[in-house]
């Protein structure tokens, strides 16, 4: 037993497990990944791709971990063997999170392709890869429509993004859909309802069901999170 072990056994609350300023960066990445996954799975519209390189970093880490598993697989020492089981199990958990997150996003993009690619602010929510995918997908669809029926139309009717009469032909997600959030601090929430609008006085830790359009600002400010 070394000195660290003795110290750790004296302190019932090892600092590394509970103090936010001492959380190792690897654990922070896991927390961020988990938050992004839960949030993306819980909202009617596409959320912003994290600009801090989180997923690029995670992808690299997963790649390295897979290489490590391959190296360790040849080693039949029972100790290594159990570590390998743990590493593999964790690896599958991370891969699932990233996969589910990415496919959730592609699902949202596919559903409202034109909505996301024809507006600058919305376009920047996608990663560069997602944007390239979305543009190509829209092009394939447009060509398919042209070849199937659109090509025989009068020229003025061949486009897909006409917004004549101030009513857009571009389908968009229903931003008033209900979401579930947890308040991370006390907050006054302006809520829209059918019969009345009102201000909800929420306490830290409250779980609230409300329209995404009413929750969005809170979530973006970090005053609430999706659950």
């Amino acid at each position, binding site marked *: 037993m070394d000195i660290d072990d003795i110290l750790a056994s004296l302190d019932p609350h090892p600092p590394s497990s509970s103090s936010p300023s001492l959380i190792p960066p690897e654990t922070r990445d896991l927390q961020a990944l988990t938050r992004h996954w839960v949030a993306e799975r819980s909202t009617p519209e596409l959320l912003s791709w994290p600009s801090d390189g989180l997923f690029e970093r995670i*992808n690299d880490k*997963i*790649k390295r971990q*897979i290489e490590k598993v391959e190296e360790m*697989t040849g080693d*039949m020492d*029972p100790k290594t*063997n*159990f570590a*390998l*089981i743990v590493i*593999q*199990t964790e690896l*599958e*958990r991370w*891969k*699932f999170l*990233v*996969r*589910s997150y*990415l*496919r959730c996003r*592609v699902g949202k993009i*596919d559903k409202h392709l034109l909505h996301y690619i024809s507006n600058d602010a919305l376009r920047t929510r996608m990663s560069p*890869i997602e944007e390239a*995918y979305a543009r*190509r*997908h829209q092009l*394939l*669809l447009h060509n*398919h*429509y042209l*070849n*199937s*029926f*659109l090509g*025989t*139309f*009068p020229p003025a*009717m061949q486009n*897909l993004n*006409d917004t*004549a*009469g*101030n*009513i*857009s*032909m571009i*389908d968009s997600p229903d931003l008033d859909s209900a979401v579930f959030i947890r308040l991370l601090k006390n907050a006054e929430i302006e809520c829209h309802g059918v019969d009345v609008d009102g201000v909800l006085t929420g306490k830290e830790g409250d779980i609230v069901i409300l329209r995404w359009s009413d929750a969005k600002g809170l979530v973006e400010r970090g005053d609430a999170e999706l659950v």
Partner: protein
Amino acid sequence: MPAIPGVSVCQNLYLIACRMGVRSGNWLGVGIWQAYGSLLPHHHQLSGALVAGEDKEVFLSIRKRQISQLEKMPMYGDLGNKLVQHAKRTQNLSHLPPYQTELVRAVAREIRDLDKDVASLLEPFQGSFDPSTEQATACTLLVNHLSMRRNKRCLLAYHRTRTDKLEELVWNGADILDLAGQTTGAPKGGATDGNEGSGTTSSLSPQEEDYFRQFGDLLALYKGQWTDIDLTGSLEPPRDLFIDVRVLKDAGEIQTEYGQFYVRQGDVERLIAQGYLQKLG
């Protein structure tokens, strides 16, 4: 009538309506709304102040004529409705029903006919059409525009429903040959259907077959950016990757990557099924 989101009144129609001397066009909304049932979305600019005063006489006469025009509309919408019904049915099916080639052609033809009607209606005016003096023509034009846009929506909805289905099949790893064989619901791959490659019975249009391949290529490209994640893998959270087993009878040496006391479930599923191993707690 099935609801189709976003069937809309085009800008030209607003122009016509406004020139007809009625300020905020509520009557237009009401008339069209009645004709289309739930098809038109609510639009705030249509429901402004009601016309009053001297506009009222104009309003009433226009509205009367408009309604008589609108009554003719179902004649145009029928084929489009059929397409939408096909699309609705397709959504609930696990397979892709045959492509409605004839129906698609007919609906597209209707659009071209309507467009010709519009052109011939406008022709005598040589570009100087004034809706306020030609109210009957204005109403016919309005109806034609609406019908064209509606047909376009129906065609888009029908094709998009089918491409959604095709994309789902690509995600699930289906092969273009699988699709060619599923038309009649007959079991494929048996010794009996050796000539399934004839192509005449495919439920996909040739354009859809192209789309299927192209989307497959696009998806492969996208997946290639995340090779280590395996994007087509399971969307169920991983559980019990490794299991404890008890050996019930000797099956010789079981070779797994991780030794024998604790094994990957996938490695030994067959042995469990065959009764060599028993899964523990």
